């Protein structure tokens, strides 16, 4: 009588507020940026580095999705879907195809998209598959050409940030 037992909380708020393994996501960026290191020794390895980066960021999403619950899991799932849409067009084409028309819209006609830009772009040509998933959407105010996958990814990441902030505010 009068004894209380600790009751484990199963609420989503009991989950860690942060995201797991941020270094894995940073590694994915570093792998893409590596060909831009002085000397350009890694430019020839760009395809392999891009694949390694894709594996790293997909693994980051997978382990965070596994740990997440509720709205956080949904938001991360939307972001991952956006990333996979980008991968779906990048893998068969060897990079993200960019529409010359979209490039011209943002004032970049004639720009060599294969040089820099995290070494993951190429121009759309007759051999491009799934071109509609490429960077075909000009976003003039930002000087940017984006893909459908970019839009979905951004929506998911912003929702993820919103869920994390809301959960923190509750605790």
């Amino acid at each position: 009588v009068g004894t209380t037992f600790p009751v484990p909380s199963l609420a989503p708020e009991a989950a860690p507020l942060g995201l797991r393994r941020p270094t894995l996501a940073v590694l994915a960026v570093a792998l893409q940026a590596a060909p831009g290191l002085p000397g350009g020794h890694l430019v020839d390895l760009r395809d392999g580095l891009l694949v390694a980066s894709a594996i790293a960021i997909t693994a980051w999403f997978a382990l965070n999705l596994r740990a997440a619950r509720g709205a956080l899991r949904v938001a991360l799932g939307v972001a991952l879907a956006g990333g996979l849409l980008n991968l779906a067009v990048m893998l068969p084409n060897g990079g993200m195809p960019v529409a010359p028309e979209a490039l011209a819209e943002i004032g970049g006609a004639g720009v060599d998209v294969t040089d820099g830009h995290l070494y993951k772009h190429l121009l759309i040509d007759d051999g491009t598959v799934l071109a509609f998933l490429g960077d075909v959407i000009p976003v003039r105010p930002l000087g940017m050409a984006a893909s459908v996958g970019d839009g979905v990814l951004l929506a998911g990441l912003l929702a993820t940030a919103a869920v994390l902030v809301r959960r923190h505010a509750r605790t």
Partner: protein
Amino acid sequence: MDRNTIRTAVAAAVALTAAWVAAGAPITLGG
């Protein structure tokens, strides 16, 4: 806000930004 919370928030912001750069592929002029 305590130091641990700030560290967690910064790590989350870094992770989300890195995820955008790594999984997103918009081409930005000057980038």
